[in-house]
């Protein structure tokens, strides 16, 4: 490691960077307006129809003695979630609402307006995703940069990546030019499974769409199942984003953010040109 030197390499194409930030905006507003929409009927079911007396998840408010409490029910388990789910707001002026006002757009419960937000950004999100996929496939980004290679998938390599990730040790040299197998797996799962699943389950809640593609509704097990999967997938994406943000910070906040804005990422090289 003689004379290590920082070099900026071009890592993210403009299309990747632009679609990434449009997704940040669209997914944030889709999530927050979606939580507001959920508040209109804060219960989830499985199948085509609602079984009102037996939702598998519900969020509500009820009286407990003299006090109102927020109650979240999952299956047969019930949790007191006062302050966050079911009954929230500043102490003294709490309201019965599924998700707290700081998490929803608009902040007040309003089904009509939250639907306008949701569908506007759903269109942006879908068009953005189409651009990403079309360009990604035609330029080879998805095959070249995201599809795992044979070497990536060797158990020894996978295990090595898991161990080094768990130790928060990340490649700094030439290896940092491309994604490792865990990144590839996570990104592919998001762009090829979770995000499309969001769109498809969302469409299955549309009665107009359902007349055109009843087989897709059946594939998800019914309109209420599709609504359930829509909700679970949304929270899977939230989980991914939290992990993603953690990894960004752990592997070099500013270097990562710069590379997603300008495309340039700093790696360490020794002066002879080899990897450090």
């Amino acid at each position, binding site marked *: 490691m003689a004379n290590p030197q920082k070099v900026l390499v071009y890592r993210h194409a403009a299309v990747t960077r632009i679609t990434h930030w449009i997704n940040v905006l669209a997914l944030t507003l889709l999530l927050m307006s979606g939580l507001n929409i959920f508040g209109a009927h804060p219960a989830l079911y499985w199948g085509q129809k609602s079984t009102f007396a037996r939702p598998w998840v519900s969020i509500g408010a009820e009286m407990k003695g003299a006090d109102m409490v927020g109650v979240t029910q999952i299956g047969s388990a019930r949790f007191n979630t006062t302050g966050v789910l079911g009954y929230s707001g500043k102490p003294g002026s709490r309201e019965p609402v599924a998700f707290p006002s700081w998490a929803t757009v608009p902040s007040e419960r309003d089904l009509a307006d939250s639907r306008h937000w949701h*569908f506007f950004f759903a269109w942006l999100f879908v068009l953005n995703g189409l651009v990403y996929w079309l360009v990604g496939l035609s330029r080879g980004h998805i095959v070249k940069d995201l599809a795992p290679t044979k070497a990536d998938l060797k158990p020894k390599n996978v295990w090595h990546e898991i161990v080094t990730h768990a130790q928060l040790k990340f490649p700094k040299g030439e290896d940092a030019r491309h994604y490792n197998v865990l990144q590839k797996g996570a990104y592919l799962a998001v762009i090829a499974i979770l995000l499309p699943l969001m769109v498809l389950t969302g469409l299955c809640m549309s009665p107009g769409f359902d007349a055109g593609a009843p087989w897709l509704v059946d594939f998800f097990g019914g309109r209420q199942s599709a609504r359930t999967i829509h909700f679970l997938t949304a929270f899977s994406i939230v989980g991914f984003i939290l992990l993603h943000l953690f990894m960004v910070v752990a592997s070099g906040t500013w270097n990562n953010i710069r590379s997603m804005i300008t495309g340039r990422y700093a790696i360490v090289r020794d002066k002879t040109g080899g990897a450090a």
Partner: protein
Amino acid sequence: MSLSANRRGWLRAGLASAGALVLGACDKITNSPKGIAVLQSAEGLTRRAQRLLINRKALAREFAPADISPDFRPNGSIDPQDADYLALKAKAFADYRLVIDGLVDKPLSLSLADLRALPSRTQITRHDCVEGWSSIAKWTGTRLGPLLDQAGLKKNARYIVFHCGDTLEETLDGTGVYYESIDLIDAYHPQTILAYAMNDRPLPVAHGAPLRLRVERQLGYKQAKYIMRLEAVEDYRHLGRGGGGFWEDRGYEWYAGI
């Protein structure tokens, strides 16, 4: 330690105030007519995309008798207190007349017996509420399309307005009376019926007795209940508050296929 705790405090305060700023901006957009108009522009895109991509005659899924919901939830008005409606209800709707007028060659006035004497259609379909829930029921009624042909739509008729017998919100100017409107694509759809029976029994009051609309590829608020009069119009903007329906006047989409 204290420095890093301090830093964390600042970071938290910074994030919280940035979040509040964004939320405040979103609320501002929601409350400004221009902002909400931009967001609402997606509705036109949705309607055009669905009309373009989905066969206009595509049928909504029909279900088996075993799928019928035992707990179909009534919504909106469930027991209208309007004087005219109460008078009709007191006589078991014997005096009820469905009026079909507006841009038609031959206005009609039909009793329930007249409607029942017409060819009927029965369908077991899923009712999707804008709130997110679904219930399944069996509806029997007469198809709207042939009825409109009988009245003879004038060339400039573009929408069918459903004037209802229930006041859902007390207002000073009468804009709280329920109404709805659909275009001719949906009016002539084979599953669009004026239903007088639900699950093989006369339509209950909570579900719109004596007559309600089923327009199966749209959300629940389009399924007007307590229908008193059908009016063929060129435009619906002079009615109510101009949105084309009770809920449309209160911010919901006129095209409720999504």
